[in-house]
């Protein structure tokens, strides 16, 4: 084997030197000391951990030379953000630019009366410290990105905090916009959703850059907590610059009889890693994990998932679909873990890849780790090409090959989009995916 292609100058901390961390702390307003202490500890963990190595099973098939932290600076302040429409009606809207909250609109006046909190994480740290402390980055980073989750915690400047108290149901989604604007900047977006007992909330988050040529680093995380009987829907629309390196860690905790549905759409980025952890902690808990990706050019989408069944009578259902064009690469590595007393677990995991190019590459590593004896677990992965007879059928109606492939891709995605209860959201996601085919 020849020498590794990793540049010698690639250091484990890259641009995130102690001076940069000190400058970040100095830029913060007064915040609770426990939080500052946690940030300091996180920075130490980040600095002490090595970059992922070829031998790390959790990074198998990943392009490690693309995971470099040089040349970025945490964004100092938020410029004005571009106006983006999600194409859906919302109950509230938070907009962040380069990590700073730049606008907060409550569109449904009933929310405040009901005790719903939709605010910045900074405000929540001061005003709802206990709730934040209990849930913010409280779950272990088990999917390989402990170093980057620590970096996220250390440099996390601001994010979204949504708390829906017991029994309150919000019909319209809360919209969150996270913009990274400018070349060479690093952003650390965070969304924390806490749904109390029998609460219901839906959150739609958009991640985007100022332009497709901006070289950026986005290290994001979210925490979704669904209390007893709560229903949480989360839709993440990732549309970063095509030169961005994005590493995202999502963690979902589902309590008794609660239900969480998440759908992550991946369109942008040069190299994107998305880790998703679902913990089914009490009987009746259900987590539905969905993903759609359109990878083109030389994009790499690297998805790692973990469904942990920690209690009996829990259910999880994962369906990740990738459409690959050009020389794009995808990696799916999923694991279902069933703890010894999690009897009658019902777990499903499926990764399907549609190859629209001979040169694309889809890697799939489904896995099971079952320690209970009365369970139903199925997993599978398929990779298929466009059916030439379907393509000819569409072409014979006057539809050019590229449009035919786009239609067939939407046909392939429909199974996932149909899982959404909202027709409006379904249509908005279709429209956003269409923009990728028009580029």
């Amino acid at each position, binding site marked *: 084997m020849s020498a590794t292609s990793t540049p010698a100058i690639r250091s484990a901390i890259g641009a995130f030197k102690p001076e940069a961390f000190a400058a970040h702390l100095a830029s913060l307003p007064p915040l609770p000391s426990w939080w500052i202490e946690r940030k300091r500890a996180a920075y130490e963990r980040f600095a002490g951990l090595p970059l992922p190595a070829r031998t790390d099973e959790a990074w198998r098939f990943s392009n490690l030379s693309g995971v470099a932290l040089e040349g970025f600076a945490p964004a100092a302040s938020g410029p004005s953000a571009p106006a983006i429409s999600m194409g859906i009606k919302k109950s509230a809207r938070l907009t962040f630019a380069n990590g700073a909250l730049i606008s907060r609109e409550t569109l449904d006046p009933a929310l405040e009366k009901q005790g719903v909190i939709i605010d910045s994480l900074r405000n929540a740290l001061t005003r709802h410290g206990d709730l934040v402390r209990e849930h913010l980055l409280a779950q272990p980073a088990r999917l390989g990105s402990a170093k980057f989750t620590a970096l996220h915690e250390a440099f996390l400047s601001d994010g979204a905090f949504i708390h829906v108290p017991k029994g309150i149901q919000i019909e319209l989604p809360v919209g969150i916009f996270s913009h990274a604007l400018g070349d060479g900047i690093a952003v650390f977006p965070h969304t924390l959703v806490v749904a109390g007992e029998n609460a219901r909330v839906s959150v739609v988050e958009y991640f985007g850059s100022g332009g497709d040529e901006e070289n950026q680093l986005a290290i994001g995380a979210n925490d979704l907590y669904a209390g007893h009987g709560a229903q949480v829907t989360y839709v993440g629309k990732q549309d970063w610059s095509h030169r961005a390196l994005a590493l995202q860690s999502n963690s979902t905790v589902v309590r008794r009889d609660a239900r969480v549905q998440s759908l992550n759409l991946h369109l942008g980025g040069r190299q994107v890693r998305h880790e998703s952890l679902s913990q089914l902690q009490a009987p009746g808990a259900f987590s539905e994990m969905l993903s759609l990706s359109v990878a083109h050019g030389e994009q790499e989408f690297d998805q790692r998932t973990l469904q942990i069944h920690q209690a009996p009578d829990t259910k999880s259902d994962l369906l990740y679909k990738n459409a690959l064009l050009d020389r794009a690469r995808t990696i799916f590595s999923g694991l279902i873990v069933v703890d010894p007393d999690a009897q009658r677990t019902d777990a499903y995991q499926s990764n399907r890849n549609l190859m629209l190019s001979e040169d694309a590459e889809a890697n799939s590593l489904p896995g099971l780790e079952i320690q209970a004896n009365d369970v139903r677990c199925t997993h599978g992965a398929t990779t298929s090409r466009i059916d030439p007879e379907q393509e000819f059928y569409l*072409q014979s*109606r*006057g*539809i050019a090959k590229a449009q*035919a492939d786009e239609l067939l891709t939407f*046909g392939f995605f429909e199974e996932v989009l149909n899982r959404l209860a909202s027709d409006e959201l379904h249509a908005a996601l279709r429209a956003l995916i269409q923009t990728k085919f028009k580029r």
Partner: protein
Amino acid sequence: MASLVIKDLHASIGDKPIVKGLSLTINSGEVHAIMGPNGTGKSTLAKVIAGHPDYTVTGGDVLLDGKSVLEQEADERARAGLFLAFQYPSEIPGVSIANFLRAAVQARMAEGEEIDAAAYYKRLYARMDMLKIDRKFTSRSVNEGFSGGEKKRCEILQMAILEPKFALMDETDSGLDIDALRIVSEGVNTLRGPGLGVLMITHYQRLLNYIVPDFVHVLYDGRIVKSGDKSLALELEAKGYDWVKRELAAANA
């Protein structure tokens, strides 16, 4: 007046020649039936004209309004005015009939031009009513889970919406019960007119009771070996294809 001219066409799949010197001219307004025993190249002929990538044209030409279509992709030929009604239409999961037809109509418009949705749906529903297709079908996936009759009606619906100059109908009667055959035939007869030429491929004479052709041709071994008017179809029905084979053998003897 538009014309579809097939000139001494030769086509193969792999190394195997299937169409072996076929010539035929169809003018708009005319309905031509091509009949023949199984395995003589009927379906291949339709696919070759439509531009299926599995077939190679090894000689001759196909001219639409005097212009060769052989260098064109299937979608260009379709936009130029050709339509293939498939014997076995593909099922396309997840793609609704409404979206599919919209894409096909949009493909015929100039760049930047948008479909008038209200007018489009009005026309679509009128055609669906004509073909006795439930309007709920628009939200169903193309051909998925359709019965044989539903698939064929859906083919005719597409033809009615896309308004081709020439339709190649490949065994449109196969798999149809008598009621479905009547509905499909009525649909085709409604579309018949001076602006449409039809090449109807069929194994059985039955279809020709419903869609009466102007010309009937017998295809055998990749060539047209006999042509006539609608009475030729009746003669074939009475005497069987062996009659043509015997005549041919006698002529070649």
